[in-house]
């Protein structure tokens, strides 16, 4: 029997269907046009973004919410260069992403053809791996490889660049075979000897801390983590990327440590005698100056990426493996051991009461973001997927929102990409049309990708956006106030331009505004009622509010600035 002959473009779409891809995000253009022809007839849903960066973040939001592969399609040249930010973002936050880009014809490559860019070279440092297809027959196998690399080991973005003539070339559809990747064999099962050594350290510890992050969520290890923490009575700090990996509100949950972490989480690490670090990378936003970080603690560091172990902090017990397997191993090795952590847990409990997160909302005064967030969560009956941008609002959401489930908190942690929230929320809502998806954004962030509101309206993706409008790049302003003598250079945006209500309406969404405390309930209830269109709430907030606690970059986590008063002693 002769094999079915398809064009390269048809092989791409057939290949994506074969890999069970149901949704792709993208923007068409010259070089990728052949692929959009068979896509039209495919059951795969295509979401037409207004900018390739938006399409990339949508795919990331989809992937972060589901834990599955997100797929984005763009054309050559500017289409591909616009994807660099989402790719770099996905690499930093270990998000499984597949990017397919069109390229100029293989015969034109290197000639500075129209819309030519060296996509493989440009994306090399922003991807886990990338490919340039040189023959259409490679496509099914490369797509399978790409998905495998993106979703296994430490997840990350993979790009496949396909020249236009290859998309038009005819080749047989051959079902992809076994993968031949001699240089890619991630270690998932930990070495039992290391697990045993780790358990011996844990048994001896009086002040252990489980320091956990995004790795728990990627590995879907939250139930195992819960068992480890509660069975052996070990307090847990969840990093920015790990929020929701262990439920807020549980007595062992200390929530977020670091630069804007709460006092107890940050201090618990400083006072610990043992850090059980799982799926974390000792990021500078957690450690501040590493020489002052957890000076009294021994370190067990488990990660699926061996390069993370010892990169910032030496580990007494390094464990390479998948978080779930590592935690299961630890639970087994600890057996029926009773840890002597009662005093430690109650010490931290008292600390929490003594040093709570604080803010002051006056009845007639300007709105404060933490207050608005807490009120919003009270009004939100169901578990929402919460998406943030980058800056003050992001820190306040991480501090004040109660996260109890993994994959319900999406944000740009590592790269700190402003403009992430709106498109990522669209991606999440596409994956879960029946879930409440809230983009809690800053005005500076929102303005970076706000054109995607049109995507949400036209593709019927009714997300809810709250723009915390302080008329400023708030975190920039905060730093200028503290470190640059209140010289507010280029940080002001204005409260009233754009008019967010008109902007929302013109883009097919409903616009609402809240200015004071008495507006909150009414406006949010209305926002929550509307489900046939996107809703944007212009929430006008205090531009002078600052995020505390704070440890200045490069400082010591022993010196936490708790409030504005403390700044005077700097």
């Amino acid at each position, binding site marked *: 029997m002769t094999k079915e002959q398809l064009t390269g473009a048809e092989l791409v779409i057939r290949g994506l269907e074969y890999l069970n891809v149901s949704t792709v995000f993208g923007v068409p253009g010259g070089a990728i046009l052949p692929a959009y022809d068979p896509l039209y007839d495919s059951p795969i849903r295509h979401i037409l973004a207004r900018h390739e960066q938006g399409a990339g973040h949508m795919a990331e939001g989809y992937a972060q919410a589901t834990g599955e592969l997100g797929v984005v399609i763009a054309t050559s040249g500017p289409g591909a260069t616009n994807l660099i930010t989402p790719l770099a973002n996905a690499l930093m936050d270990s998000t499984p992403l597949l990017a397919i880009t069109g390229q100029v014809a293989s015969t034109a490559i290197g000639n500075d053809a129209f819309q030519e860019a060296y996509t*493989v*070279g440009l994306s*090399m*440092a922003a991807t*886990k*791996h990338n490919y*340039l297809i040189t023959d259409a027959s490679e496509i099914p196998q490369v797509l399978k490889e790409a998905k495998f*690399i993106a979703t296994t080991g430490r997840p990350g973005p993979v790009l496949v660049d396909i020249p236009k003539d290859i998309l038009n070339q005819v080749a047989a559809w051959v079902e992809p075979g076994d993968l031949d*990747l*001699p*240089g*890619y064999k991630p270690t998932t099962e930990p070495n039992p000897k290391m697990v045993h050594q780790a358990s011996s350290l844990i048994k001896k510890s009086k002040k252990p801390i489980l320091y956990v992050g995004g790795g728990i969520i990627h590995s879907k290890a939250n139930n195992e983590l819960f068992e480890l923490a509660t069975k052996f009575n070990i307090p847990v700090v969840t990093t920015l990327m790990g929020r929701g990996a262990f439920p807020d509100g549980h007595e062992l949950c200390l929530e977020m440590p670091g630069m804007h972490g709460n006092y107890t989480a940050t201090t618990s690490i400083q006072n610990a005698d043992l850090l059980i670090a799982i799926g974390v990378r000792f990021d500078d936003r957690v450690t501040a100056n590493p020489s002052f970080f957890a000076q009294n603690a021994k370190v067990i560091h488990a990660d699926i*990426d*061996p*390069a993370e172990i*010892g*990169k910032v902090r030496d580990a007494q017990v390094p464990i390479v493996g998948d978080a779930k397997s590592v935690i299961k191993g630890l639970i087994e090795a600890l057996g029926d051991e009773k840890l002597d952590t009662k005093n430690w847990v109650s010490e931290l409990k008292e600390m929490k009461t003594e040093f709570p997160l604080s803010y002051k909302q006056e009845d007639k005064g300007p709105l404060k973001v933490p207050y608005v967030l807490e009120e919003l969560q009270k009004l939100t009956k169901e578990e929402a997927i919460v998406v943030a941008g980058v800056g003050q609002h992001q820190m306040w959401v991480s501090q004040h929102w109660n996260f109890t489930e993994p994959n319900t908190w999406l944000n740009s942690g590592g790269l700190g990409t402003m403009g992430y929230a709106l498109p990522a929320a669209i991606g999440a809502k596409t994956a879960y049309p029946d879930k409440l998806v809230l983009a809690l954004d800053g005005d500076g962030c929102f303005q970076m990708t706000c054109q995607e509101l049109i995507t949400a309206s036209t593709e019927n993706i009714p997300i809810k956006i709250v723009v915390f409008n302080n008329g400023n790049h708030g975190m920039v302003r905060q730093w200028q106030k503290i470190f640059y003598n209140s010289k507010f250079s280029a940080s002001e945006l204005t409260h009233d331009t754009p008019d967010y209500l008109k902007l929302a309406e013109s883009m097919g969404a409903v616009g609402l505004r809240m200015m004071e405390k008495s507006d909150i309930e009414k406006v949010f209830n209305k926002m929550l009622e509307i489900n046939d269109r996107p809703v944007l709430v212009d929430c006008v907030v205090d531009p002078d509010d600052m995020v505390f606690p704070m440890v200045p970059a490069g400082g010591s986590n022993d010196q936490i600035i708790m409030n504005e008063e403390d700044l005077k002693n700097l």
Partner: protein
Amino acid sequence: MSERILSVLVEDKPGVLARVSSTISRRGFNINSLSVGPTNIEGRSKMTIVTELDAVEQVKKQLNKLVNVIKIVELDPNMTIETEVLLLKVSINKDSQTSVIEKASLSNATSVDVGQDFAIFELTGSSKELDKFEALMKPFGIIEMVRGGRIALQSNL
């Protein structure tokens, strides 16, 4: 600073050298030498990378993350045969000719081309021997010089 030699087996795929060198430069590692060439196994190339001791662990780990990197072996300096090749073009005249040729011959360099007013020598040896030869030739006027990068093999199984 003491040096470490890494022998890196890679898939012979387009862009693999760019991936390796991009990883090295973006992580800020110092590399003293890098050479690449085919091996006896089809589809496999070998890179020899000489780096500083303080960077070696991270260099190994970061390179290992590359999908096309198959295996990295750190060679034991005490059991390693290491060599490098040099081509050096030096100017000669009637007065210096004899002296240049004598010094080159004492250094075990081979003359590969001689013209009216220049000579080209080839020398294979350790980096130190090559450095020494370069210093010897310097007073006569080195016109051009190229070194091939260091390659190495472990001398046991």
